[in-house]
């Protein structure tokens, strides 16, 4: 479990450092952000309170990040793009669709629990293959974003053996929900 625990801490520290240095007034520093972001990353991993790092504190609250979240956080840090690139937007559509099914049924008063599907995920993989190939015909870069969590699942980089935990978490689902539904709705309201 040592590798998975370190990986989990790495994810929490990477999330905070990349998020802080992706803020608009810090993003302007471009590649000059890398050193301070690296220092923040290391500082977040240092044991502070009763031997617990700030990354460990955050990890206690949000658990381990999905690989999709990590990939998006790191790519948005190293390759910032405004507005969202089309492959990322399509990835977020898949995340939104998957999250609506997963969270609605897993947390709701239903007899179906889609989270169970992630333990023997051959049907999920089939759905992912169809969705990936169909939506990536014009934007093949999307397939990189889908391939990385699948490879991480093969390598069991996270403590979970459930495919859902590599593909999606509440953070990336919340981000997709805001970007694809909330922001357009607010814009529509503003213009009308």
């Amino acid at each position, binding site marked *: *479990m040592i590798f998975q*625990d*370190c990986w*989990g*801490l790495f994810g929490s520290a990477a999330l905070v450092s990349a998020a802080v240095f992706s803020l608009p007034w810090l993003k302007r520093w471009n590649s000059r952000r890398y050193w301070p972001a690296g220092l923040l990353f290391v500082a977040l991993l240092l044991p502070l309170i*009763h*031997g*617990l790092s700030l990354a*460990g*504190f*955050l*990890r*206690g*609250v*949000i*658990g*381990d990040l999905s690989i999709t979240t990590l990939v998006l956080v790191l790519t948005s840090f190293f390759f910032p793009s405004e507005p969202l690139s089309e492959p990322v937007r399509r990835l977020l559509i898949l995340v939104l669709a998957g999250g609506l099914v*997963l*969270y609605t049924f*897993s*947390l*709701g*008063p239903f*007899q179906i*629990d889609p*989270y*169970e599907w992630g*333990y*023997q*995920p*051959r049907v999920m*993989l089939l759905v*992912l*293959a169809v969705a*990936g*190939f169909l939506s*990536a015909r014009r934007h*093949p*870069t*999307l*397939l*990189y974003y*889908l*391939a*990385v969590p*699948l*490879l991480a*699942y*093969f390598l*069991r980089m*996270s*403590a*979970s*053996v*459930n*495919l*859902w*935990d590599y593909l999606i*978490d*509440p953070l990336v689902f919340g981000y997709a929900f805001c970007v694809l539904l909330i922001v357009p709705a607010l814009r529509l309201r503003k213009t009308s």
Partner: protein
Amino acid sequence: MPFFLFALALLLAAYSAYPTPPPLSSRLVLNPANDGNAPPANVNTRSFLPKTGLSSHAASITELAGGTIACAWFSGSREGAPDAAVYLSLYRSGQWSTPRQIATPRQTQNDTLRFVRIVGNPVLSADTKGSLRLWYVTSIGGWSASAINHMVSIDNGETWSKAGRLVTAPFFNMSTLVRMPPLLLAGGQFLLPTYHELATHHGEATRLASDGITVLGKNRLPSDRPLLQPSIVSLPEKGELLALLRKGGRAPGLIGADVFLDSESKWTARNPPPIPNPNSSIALLRLNDGRLLLACNPSAAGRYMLCLWMSVDGGSTWREALQVEKSENTGDEFSYPALLQDREGLIHLVYTWKREKIAHRIISPDILQPAG
């Protein structure tokens, strides 16, 4: 290139996915029967485990390879206090040993490299190789934000491995709890009864690998009302598993019931036994002779009465067999029972006694006669 990489990733992921498991009943490891001698008769004694704090709660009990009985519970200034810890005591030669802290919030935090505020609900089980397993819940806030942790001891509880965190839920891995011991499966796997109480209250049957941490699969136990803390036994003569569940929520109600039919490979709801439950934990045990024993608080008014109920027909009908505790004060609490039948055939019942300490009752099966 991206198409090739994606196809390769899909193939590798499919290759590494765990296969669908074979039917459960073919993999159940039944508890060892007693040595064939009749258990001592007319035994019904009560004693108390050494006191460990102002408040003690949620005991769990198991028998180790040498016949020693192990009991774990959590204790501190109050339930949910950061000073509460999991304690272990061993019963040898009619005496409980001095309790030892085996899991605390600080130790779990250091082991799992993440923030932990409170610990609770320990579950003990001796596995097929003789190791002692401990699952317990930790949380960063209230119990509904809990996750399950696991430790193992190969020297009957003297020393323990580092704690590891189970990943059981999609929403920040929150709100999966444990209360009752697992069924043992072939290959050293476990079928651990768990439950969820964040947005809805429902039981689950979680299948674990032999390391006790890796979750290989889980099934939601069906219910049309809030139910918690499943207690599962196997009914080999019927090819079924039977789960009875604590009623959740504030409204008075009955214990819940689900069965797993191997022929259908799924859990289905069953008519609940007509036993009231005041939103309080229950314990279910299959005796060596096939009878089922249920420890519960059979009153909607509170936890002031603790009884044993018995079923001789695989859980279809139930009768009260023994009143263990009853107080005139309905505010008193005798709750959170845990049951075990040892290798001599004697039944051990441990439970919370007025939240002050853990009581231990030893009962011989002959005095359990279903009332008329």
